[in-house]
């Protein structure tokens, strides 16, 4: 192994990461100098947003070139570019929500901002890493920050349980991931994905243990992106976590984990092992079925969204499988990225709606609480309707085009049965996505939003709703834009 010293080019490449880290220090440093007293929350919010904005700007300027840094351990290609873009945007929007939510705002907001930025840093590492060990570092940095963020909620019971549960199960998943890495290192003599990519088909045949390693690594990912049967933590954690952080987890984590998953799948492992290919297909089908059927019986809005997010992992996995078996993976990968973007938008919006209804940190929002919502808040109700229809995949929203692209890429690879399962599931999902709409519009009640100032949350909701329509109508241009960078 050749030892390469990092040069100035490497530093330029990781400048988004450096910026994010340095900016994350600002709020807590200020807090120390103020004698451990919180500065006004607005100031913290602005510092956090500036950090994300700088990082995003640097990523957009220097990223997306396809160059590698630090001896091929990090890559800044289209995947990094777009998923980093989605993750950072989701982080910024979640920060908005955290600023106004009763369970996250207040005396620990600067620590929370610090952790948010650091988990975003972990996400950037994760999306750009091409070495299994660097991926692991990214995963851990992202997850450790989140364990803390979940536990720091002002709500006393559920959030602590959620944090602990997530921590225990997450550690298991990480351990399994590392175990798989060890097998791969043992058989392929390297942990670098780019290096493995060339020899993967041969290794599949000669070394059974290599396949074992790949499977263990994929299990680790299955946990992170909550694919059944590794999804059990998701509803509990999403419910227990403060709503803005659930939104953050459901969007940003899923996005970057899937991107990294895609990188591993693109090594050609799936195409060279029929068994792995079958297993992944079944996982996709089971995930969709479990998520959608379980969501039907949920009364708690957050739990419903959690199960819906499980189901969406199944749809995304269809795209990932298609990319894995494709000769021209950029087509399917673009579908996956577009789906991730669309999914992030509508899920963020839906969680923002939940946040809007929370009057205190202990409030549990049920679907029935929405009764009469459309009469009191017609615009917000319309936005929520757009989110739900988009989640259900009704045109011309982004949700529809996301499904369209993913299913197209699967059909292009001949995965007809998988897509039939996909569309059957989207019909099942319509049932529960319509339920909040029914309650909002067709039942009378005295639903109210929280009384404190909620301008940022409302702004987030309206902005995402508009984006869902606009990005849906212009999806073709966006698709080409993304595909050209891959």
């Amino acid at each position, binding site marked *: 192994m050749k030892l390469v010293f990092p040069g100035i080019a490497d530093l330029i490449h990781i400048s988004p990461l450096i910026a994010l880290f340095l900016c994350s220090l600002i709020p807590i440093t200020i807090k120390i100098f103020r004698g451990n007293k919180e500065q006004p929350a607005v100031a913290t919010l602005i510092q956090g947003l500036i950090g994300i904005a700088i990082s995003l700007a640097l990523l957009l300027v220097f990223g997306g070139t396809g160059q590698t840094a630090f001896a091929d351990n990090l890559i800044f290609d289209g995947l990094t570019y777009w998923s980093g873009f989605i993750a950072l945007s989701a982080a910024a929007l979640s920060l908005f929500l955290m600023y106004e939510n009763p369970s996250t705002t207040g005396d620990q907001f600067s620590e929370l901002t610090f952790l948010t930025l650091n988990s975003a840093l972990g996400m950037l590492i994760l999306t750009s890493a091409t070495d299994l060990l660097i991926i692991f570092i990214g995963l851990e940095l992202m997850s450790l920050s989140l364990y803390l963020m979940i536990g720091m909620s002002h709500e006393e019971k559920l959030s602590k349980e959620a944090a602990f549960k997530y921590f225990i199960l997450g550690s298991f998943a990480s351990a399994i991931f590392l175990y798989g890495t060890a097998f791969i290192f043992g058989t392929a003599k390297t942990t670098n994905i780019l290096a493995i990519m060339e020899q993967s088909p041969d290794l599949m045949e000669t070394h059974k243990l290599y396949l074992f390693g790949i499977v263990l690594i994929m299990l680790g990912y299955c946990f992170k992106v909550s694919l059944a049967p590794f999804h059990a933590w998701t509803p509990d954690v999403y419910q227990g976590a403060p709503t803005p952080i659930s939104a953050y987890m459901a969007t940003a984590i899923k996005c970057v984990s899937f991107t990294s998953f895609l990188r591993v799948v693109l090594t050609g492992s799936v195409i060279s092992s029929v068994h792995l290919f079958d297993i992944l297909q079944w996982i996709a089908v089971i995930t969709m079925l479990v998520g959608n059927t379980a969501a039907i019986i949920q009364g708690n809005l957050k739990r419903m969204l959690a199960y819906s997010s499980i189901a969406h992992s199944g749809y995304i996995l269809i795209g990932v499988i298609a990319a894995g078996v494709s000769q021209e993976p950029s087509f399917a990968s673009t579908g996956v990225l577009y789906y991730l973007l669309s999914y992030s938008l509508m899920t963020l919006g839906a969680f923002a709606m939940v946040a809007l209804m929370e009057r205190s940190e202990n409030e549990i929002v049920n679907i029935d609480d929405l009764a009469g919502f459309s009469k009191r808040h017609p615009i917000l109700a319309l936005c929520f309707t757009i989110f739900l*229809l988009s989640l259900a995949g*009704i*045109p*011309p929203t982004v949700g*529809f085009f996301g499904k*369209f692209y993913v*299913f*197209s890429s699967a*059909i*292009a690879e001949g995965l*007809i049965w998988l*897509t*039939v399962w996909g*569309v*059957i599931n*989207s*019909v099942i999902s*319509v*049932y529960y996505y*319509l339920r909040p709409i*029914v309650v909002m*519009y*067709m039942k009378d009640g005295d639903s109210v939003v929280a009384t404190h100032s909620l301008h940022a949350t409302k702004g987030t909701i309206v902005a995402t709703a508009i984006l869902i329509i606009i990005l849906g109508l212009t*999806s*073709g241009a966006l*698709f*080409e834009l993304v*595909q050209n960078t891959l």
Partner: protein
Amino acid sequence: MLLTTVVFLPLLCALILVFWPQSKTLRFAALGFSIVEFIVSLTILTNFDKGTAQLQMVEKHLWIERFGISYHLGIDGISLWLVLLTTFLTPIVILGAWNGIQDRVKGFHISIFFLQFAMIGTFLALDAIFFYVFWELSLIPMYFMIGIWGGARRIYATIKFFIFTMSGSVLMLLAMIYMMFLVQESTGTMSANILDFYKLNVPFVAGTFFSLQTLLFFAFALAFAIKVPIFPLHTWLPDAHVEAPTPGSVILAGVMLKMGTYSFLRWVLPLFPEASEYWAWLFLLLGVVGIIYGALVAMVQPDVKKLVAYSSVSHMGYIMLGMFSFNIFGVSGSLFQMLNHGISTGALFLLIGMIYERTHTREIVKYGGLAGRLPLFTIFFFIMTLSSIAVPLTNGFIGEFLILLGAYKANPVLAGFAVSGVVFGAVYMLWMFKKVFFGPEGEVLKDVHHPVKDLSKREIAVLVPLVILVFWMGIFPNHFMDYSKSSLDYLVKNMKQYELTVHDPKAPGALQAGVQR
């Protein structure tokens, strides 16, 4: 630009209504907009060239280049009258809902315009995905219309409606994507353009279900069969009709069901001719079963609205029967019957809505002897009953006669059974008419505190255009059929190698080009 205007004007109206102040003028504004839209759509007629079977007034702009999806509108003899039916019924529905809808008036009118936008788009779209967008979009306003302004079991009915329709259409989406890849295989570039779909030759193997053309055929046919609805898939319709508010029922029966039958003509028959022919027996059979089943069930309904809803199942059976007989009589009869059904069933729903507003009941046993107190209402109802049971000189006669003629040529046995449906149809409609209008005065008339008044001027204004059309279409059917003749002729004669091109009015000999092929 004309077709774009016709499609998007209702959307613009809906947007204007969003910002319109919540006042009495809202209804007038909505009525005015819908009349303007109708007049604009009438200008299609003056620009329409009857002599050609090709697509006219085509507008095409690329939308999603990578997938060959385009913004593609065009009209021919098949879609022409359905578009006009939509724009014609909308002002009638708005005027008819003047007193009936009192809650969330603004939202209601926005829904109507949004629905009109989606339905016209469905009829005019010539691109698979573009069509699918409109097809699904039309569910949303109808979903709200039934769910917000509907009756007691409205939520059950509206969810059933949504899920039934959606479950059919998702498989169609997959089939469409598959066909886009088939186009890519044969021409090299992906396209969702229906004109490119027509050029495809999808392999067909008789005797098995698992041949490519058969599978694609059923994926499309299922979506449309649910919408029509064909017999075993019809169960959402009575629920939706009964629970929907009057305007919702009128649009549902008048236009939305036609989206299914129209799509059979546009998408299924020309795209999968061998499979359609091979499986025609199934659709003929289900059509006849639907005719008789719908009629028999209608006979025993205690609720007059439910009776008309089941009569819809029966009438839609005729349309399927005519279409799958694959001859010019049957196909043109079925197109004509689509319009008839829109007018006469729409009118019946309006009339039922009017009497319901007065009496707050729809049970047949509570009526009785209405003829003595409500002469005008009785006359209008009688005309519509005649149209519905296809008495000569009314529009219904032309449609059913042509369909039965066509069906007889295709399959005399099934035609024989279908004829019995005509008798059953007369039975349930006339029984109902007798019980409601004659005999001893019923419960609703005895209620002295709420005297039942005859039709108001507004209600007469709602009904008169429909009555005029009933007789116009019944006495001068050619005024209407001439426009669609070329297209239907061409479809029937060239089903196996159906191909459409864009009609260029300036090209020499264009007049005959379509027919001669």
